[in-house]
């Protein structure tokens, strides 16, 4: 089907305008999964969407492909609302999503059948596509007779047989072993480079940084809580890309840094010709203190221990009948203090975390103090300032000024409030609310050991 002449060569095939996703809760507040986002898929590029788990990558894919309705905002297909457009896209799924009771050929033919294509043409096109993906001779086999890699080849054949304009891929290689995945990736690139497939754009969702850098012309990194675009940049490395080259590894490092430091605004992507990373202008960053109380952290850790030291965050929220938004600051606080690690949506308690949760209150304060001084810059600075000043008091203003460079005025105030909360609990300092000054508690001055972890 010939496309109507487009005004510019790069007019977006799919354009999302302010799409967001939230789930309404009965209790008025809602769970925001994806913050309002603009995004375009333009012809001629492989676009990779990277992000930690829980950043809404898959949800984004489903909204862009029309499978899921944005809670607000609009997705356009060639500038027509997607709900009424005859879109032509395919999805390659992580689990392959093949029909086990149909043969390989029947699986590939099924989408053509849905389009009312007569049997002879169906057979011709499916056999040709199976040949293209290297499955010649397997048309009569059932998916369960094939290896994982071959099954995903069937998935690709089924996706490509309808000649989609946009090919969506939802972690297509993550269920495969390393070698098979590598193999399939390079074959996909070959098909794309040789224009063997009529597809105009590829949209790849992945959590594998190397995979994104290897394949993509453009990478978008998503952040969490709620999902939002943190950075969006082009990959200019020439294909085929060498994993060992310096620009490649620099780019991977850069993305890794962006992903692991969600509190820091990402810098520009590194120059991909020389491999130099632009120098970070700000020398020091305050971590964003999550607004959680130390008691809450202790409670969470105790619960985690009851759950065997590790559990899914969402399940924890469920068990506690907490809104996930209420639980997350506590989880973040515990993570910041080094009391737990987050791996793929699971919270796992660390050794110090376990020690903290299992101690009686005085020892708990001591452990909290150590963790706070080691991990939280703001608390460390307050403490040091109080110690160095002769009268052992410092006005709140002093820290607010420093925080203002990084946070909004409101947020700076809240940061100080949380710092006071934590500092008081850890008996690091006290706060005189009438004079708005931090003070060093004199009674305990002798007992509070000098920060060891400096």
């Amino acid at each position, binding site marked *: 089907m010939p496309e109507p002449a487009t005004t510019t060569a790069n007019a977006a095939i799919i354009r999302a305008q302010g799409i967001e996703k939230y789930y309404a809760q009965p209790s008025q507040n809602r769970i925001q999964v994806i913050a309002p986002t603009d995004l375009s898929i333009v012809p001629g590029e492989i676009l990779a969407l990277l992000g930690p788990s829980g950043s809404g990558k898959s949800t984004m894919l489903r909204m862009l492909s029309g499978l899921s309705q944005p809670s607000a905002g609009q997705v356009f297909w060639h500038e027509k609302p997607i709900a009424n457009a005859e879109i032509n896209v395919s999805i390659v799924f992580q689990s392959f999503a093949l029909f*086990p009771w149909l043969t390989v050929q029947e699986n590939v033919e099924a989408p053509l059948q849905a389009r009312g294509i007569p049997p002879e043409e169906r057979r011709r096109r499916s056999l040709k596509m199976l040949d293209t993906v290297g499955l010649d001779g397997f048309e009569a086999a059932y998916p369960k007779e094939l290896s994982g890699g071959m099954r995903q080849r069937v998935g690709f054949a089924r996706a490509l047989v309808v000649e989609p304009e946009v090919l969506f891929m939802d972690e297509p290689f993550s269920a495969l072993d390393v070698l098979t995945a590598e193999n399939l990736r390079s074959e996909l690139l070959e098909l794309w480079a040789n224009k063997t497939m009529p597809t105009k754009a590829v949209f790849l969702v992945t959590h594998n940084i190397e995979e994104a850098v290897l394949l993509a012309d453009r990478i978008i990194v998503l952040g969490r809580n709620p999902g939002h675009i943190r950075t969006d940049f082009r990959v200019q490395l020439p294909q085929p890309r060498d994993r060992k080259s310096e620009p490649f590894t620099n780019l991977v490092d850069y993305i890794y840094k962006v992903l692991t430091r969600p509190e820091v605004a990402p810098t520009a992507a590194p120059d991909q010709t020389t491999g130099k990373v632009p120098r970070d202008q700000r020398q020091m960053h305050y971590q964003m203190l999550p607004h959680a109380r130390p008691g809450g952290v202790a409670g969470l850790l105790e619960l985690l221990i009851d759950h065997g030291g590790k559990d899914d965050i969402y399940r924890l929220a469920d068990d506690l009948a907490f809104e996930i938004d209420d639980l997350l600051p506590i989880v973040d606080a515990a993570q910041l203090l080094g009391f737990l690690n987050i791996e793929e949506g699971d919270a796992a308690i660390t050794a110090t975390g376990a020690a903290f949760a299992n101690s009686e209150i005085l020892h708990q304060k001591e452990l909290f103090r150590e963790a706070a001084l080691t991990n939280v810059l703001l608390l460390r600075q307050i403490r040091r300032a109080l110690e160095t000043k002769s009268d052992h008091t410092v006005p709140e203003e002093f820290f607010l000024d420093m925080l203002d460079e990084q946070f909004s005025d409101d947020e700076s105030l809240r940061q100080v409030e949380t710092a006071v909360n934590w500092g008081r609990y850890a008996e690091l300092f006290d706060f005189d609310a009438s004079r708005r000054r931090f003070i060093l508690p004199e009674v305990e001055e002798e007992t509070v050991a000098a920060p060891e972890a400096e």
Partner: protein
Amino acid sequence: MSLNHPSGTTLPPHRVLARSLVTVRSWPFLIDLAIGACGIAIFFAILRTCSYWLGGQVPVVAISHSVSALPVYAFYSITRIAIAYLLSLTFAISYGYTAAYNPRIEAWMVAVLDILQSIPVLSFLPPVILFMITLIPGHQLGIEMGVILLIFTGQVWNLAFSFYSSLKSIPKEMVEAARIYRYSAWQRFWQLEMPYATIGLVWNSIVSVAGGWFALIACEMFPLGARNFRLPGIGSYLQTATDSGDVKAILYGIAVVILIVVATDQLLWRPLIAWSDKFKFEQVESSDRVTSPILELLRRSNLTAIPGRLFTRLEEPLFRRLARTRACRVVEPLDADETTRKPALLLILLAVAAAALASWGLWQAALMLRTVTWADLRLLLAGAAATFARVNASLIISALWTIPVGVTIGFNPKLARIVQPVAQVLASVPATAFFPILLIGLVKLGGGLGIGSIALMLLGTQWYILFNVIAGAMSIPSDLKEAASVYHFTRWQRWTTLILPGIFPYLITGMVTASGGAWNASVFAEYSRLADRTLSTVGLGAQIDAATESGHFNILLLATVLISIMVVTMNRLVWRRLYRLAETRYKLEG
């Protein structure tokens, strides 16, 4: 070859090869001939049945004792079961589909299923028969339909539930694939939903049809008030033989019932199970599969391919038309289904009508129940307690002997391979067929029905538990067993830490099924007529029977309500909790 494939030229060479391998077969002509002959026989049978049905009403058919009459009786009974089953299947699929895709009424429909599933069918007998007779007056069809409807109500609920839960558990990515590739509802039904639900439907069909036989044998012949109903069939044959104390005829009758059950298992269920293997949703091919020689024979016959080809020919134009519909052109968001659809006017009207009908029925029932005296109520409650005790006693006795035996069998794979299918078939043999023999035995021994009815219930319940326990014992991973012996577990430890937790989910499944069966059996087991004597004991089941016979519909209604309340409460309070416990805590994964 060219005859098989008009388009054979476009086929790749190895496919032709695959076909030609299949043609290395013995006696293709004879197989075709046999299948053709079966077709003609079925056609004749339909003709014959129709002429009998459309004939005048003969409420009391004279039932002969002679063995030569048995094949005809068996045929009539099988026809009833088959029609009831087909009705159940159709209804179950539409019900499950409607429930799964209409979130607005889903919760209601599932609750209805849940309750109807646990109500003993036999207490529905009188109203159903009377209703059908008035609906189709003057024909044998009315009485027949009544019995068929009754069997239907016993078969349909678990099928519907199975289909519904299959639809609900289709993996999300499969649903998304069907949507993004713009399947029509038709294509989705045949390529995704039906295949996915097939295995559940096959296994539940086996249970359903077994339940159907149970009810059929009980209700082909029954007194209702002043009238007697008797339909030609294997059930009434057994009853007549019992009435006249003809042990030889009873034994012949039982033999035929067992023969039918075994033949159904071999000719229908096993091929179906073997065939449904291809619908297994698994990543790797499993090593042990059910094999069926019958299925192999059918696969080799040329004639069985004809319906498939015919279907394809009819389907192609349909797909071309469907491709122009909205579902095949536009990808509709999956999550928009629930939110945007407004309740149709028709649905509201239906809901109002249903509510009106229900309240009218409730009002009528209340009027009827007003006539029940306190003395009656007291009797009924005492009966309820007695039946409750009996049902649970039979369950406990079954569990006590089946657990050790089942585990022993299950731990011995060789033995299990022989015993398990046998237990499965035994579970399908309707216990009602054995009742006459047991009754005669009881009378000879001089025992009352009080204990006897427990024995009768046992007949129906124990096999379910047995084959589930065997399956459970077989499912315990061998590395766990090895660990138990490596660490020198004592016998007590082995049972409490390995075996009992291991078989727990299976045991519960078996007990739930058995408990339903026992309640159903109570209606039949507590009250019986032998020759001119009436044997009965205190119990709700006996009261239901007596009320049916004497036409006291108010007592019948109250007893049915009581029995339903008891069963539903037991399910909610005990079985469901145990089930959840089994699902969450005692599930052996991998």
